[in-house]
């Protein structure tokens, strides 16, 4: 990360311990959460995913205490969030929501500077941080700083939402379906950019989505939640795809979970055959997702494609069989980034 106007406060670990939220006594209505326990190490993205009404948003809102749990505790860097003064807690936690919730009466610059303003930073420091963050999320400060939210597209607004949440350099970010309101093309670009950003920032992130593909793409860890607010499975994306813990999880991740696992791997993960004659074979850069490579091989009707290494040199020939083998447990998944 480039020189920041703020100190870098790093990331915090997050732990749910037996967290329960009951609405109607004795029943489990939508949004209820039942004995949720999991641990997210500092700097990881944990995705809460599940069907609507499974309590994922409730779980997220219990972290910044927009909702108070009925039982259990949530620890931020080992400290129970309920022991922290609520506004101080919230200012230390970035919060991004689906509808963005930008303040329509404030310029983009002042929207980004909201939490620093609440925290009493000097005007000069607020402005320096605002300009830094707008650049960070890919918005030219000179063009956007003095505009109002209504003058921006949905994708631009969501970038501002991310910048605003990052403003006071919080050790934890809560993101509630942050990319669900934009069209699929913009969504994919925002996801990619956010992952690139996260590689620099290494924040701890709790991310809610109902979309299993988004969960697999964004998550270092995934918590699959079932109706009634139960934790159905917790683990790395590849684990959950390879070994669903229950019929529910298997159904939720989909019959194509094998193909989904391929999107977690790249050409660099696959065993190759000797080059031989490679005339007319398609070439795959080392970071091509195996899912895309397979799709191309099936269409290309060739014996395989040329796998390139990180320097762009041919490494060997990759075949459909080779890709299938990459899903075997013998080949360990290289963790990206």
């Amino acid at each position, binding site marked *: 990360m480039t020189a920041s106007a703020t100190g870098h406060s790093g990331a915090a670990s997050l732990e749910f311990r037996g967290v329960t939220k009951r609405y109607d006594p004795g029943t489990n209505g939508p949004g209820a959460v039942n004995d949720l326990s999991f641990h997210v190490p500092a700097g990881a993205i944990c995705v809460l995913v599940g069907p609507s009404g499974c309590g994922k948003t409730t779980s997220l809102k219990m972290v910044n205490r927009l909702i108070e749990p009925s039982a259990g505790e949530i620890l931020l860097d080992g400290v129970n969030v309920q022991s922290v003064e609520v506004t101080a807690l919230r200012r230390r*936690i970035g919060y991004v929501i689906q509808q963005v*919730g930008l*303040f*329509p*009466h404030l310029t983009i610059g002042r929207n980004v500077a909201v939490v620093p303003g609440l925290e009493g930073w000097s005007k000069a420091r607020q402005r320096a941080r605002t300009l830094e963050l707008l650049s960070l999320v890919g918005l030219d400060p000179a063009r956007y700083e003095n505009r*109002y939210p209504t*003058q921006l597209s949905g994708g631009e607004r969501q970038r501002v939402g991310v910048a605003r949440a990052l403003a006071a350099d919080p050790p934890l970010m809560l993101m509630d379906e942050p990319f669900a309101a934009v069209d699929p093309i913009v969504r994919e670009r925002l996801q990619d950019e956010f992952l690139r950003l996260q590689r620099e920032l290494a924040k701890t992130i709790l991310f809610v989505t109902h979309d299993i593909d988004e969960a697999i793409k964004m998550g270092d860890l995934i918590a699959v939640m079932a109706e009634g607010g139960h934790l159905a499975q917790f683990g790395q994306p590849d684990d959950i795809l390879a070994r669903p813990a229950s019929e529910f999880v298997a159904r939720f991740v989909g019959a194509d979970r094998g193909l989904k696992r391929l999107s977690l791997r790249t050409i660099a993960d696959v065993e190759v055959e000797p080059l031989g004659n490679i005339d007319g074979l398609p070439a795959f850069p080392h970071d091509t997702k195996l899912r895309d490579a397979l799709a191309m091989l099936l269409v290309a009707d060739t014996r395989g494609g040329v796998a390139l290494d990180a320097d762009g040199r041919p490494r060997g020939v990759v075949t459909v069989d080779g890709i299938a083998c990459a899903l075997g447990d013998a080949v360990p998944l290289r963790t990206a980034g």
Partner: protein
Amino acid sequence: MNGEPLVRWDWIFAHTGPILDRVGQHLYLAVLAVAIGFAISFVLAAIAIRRRRLYPLVTLLATAVYTIPSFAMFAALVVVTGLSTFTAEVPLVLYTFVLLVPNIVAGFDSVPQDVLDAADGMGYTAGQRWWRVELPLAIPLVVSGLRLATVSTIGLVTVSAILGNQFGGLGYYILDGYHRTFTTEILVGGLLSIALAVLADFGFVLLQRLLTPWSAARAAAR
């Protein structure tokens, strides 16, 4: 007709001093009524927002008051409170409720829920949220309520002329002109009252633009 011209300019020029005094009185009665009406309406609206079940009752009362003819209310109040500025102000204040309360409530209702959620999630205290988010976003509808109430009150002030010579603002000239069958006076009272209302309306449009620069940005974006 006796050959008298429709407008006797010599009369107007001979009475500029008293006419200006009446303009001043007219504005005083109107501004005071709107200011008091706004303060009370804000309290009523605040109650209606917190206790939603009371809102229909508040609206019902405000509307019921509004159905009383102004002429009748001034006349009836004289019996109770005598000939005083207080008597002139009470009906004017009461009539503002029906325009102000619903606009203030609608103004605060218009603040989007996602904006309130974001404000809470970012760590605004309740007070900060009210002053820095809810109030500014309610301004457009609150100001349009004030605009309506002011224009309507400026018109109604003329009716208070029935309380006697020392009331009524420009309404004095309308009533006096009627009694004396003197068109010039009626026109001076009526037209100046209209001019005041138009100016006030224009003033609120300007005020609204100054207070809510983001609304202009929205219009330009379309």
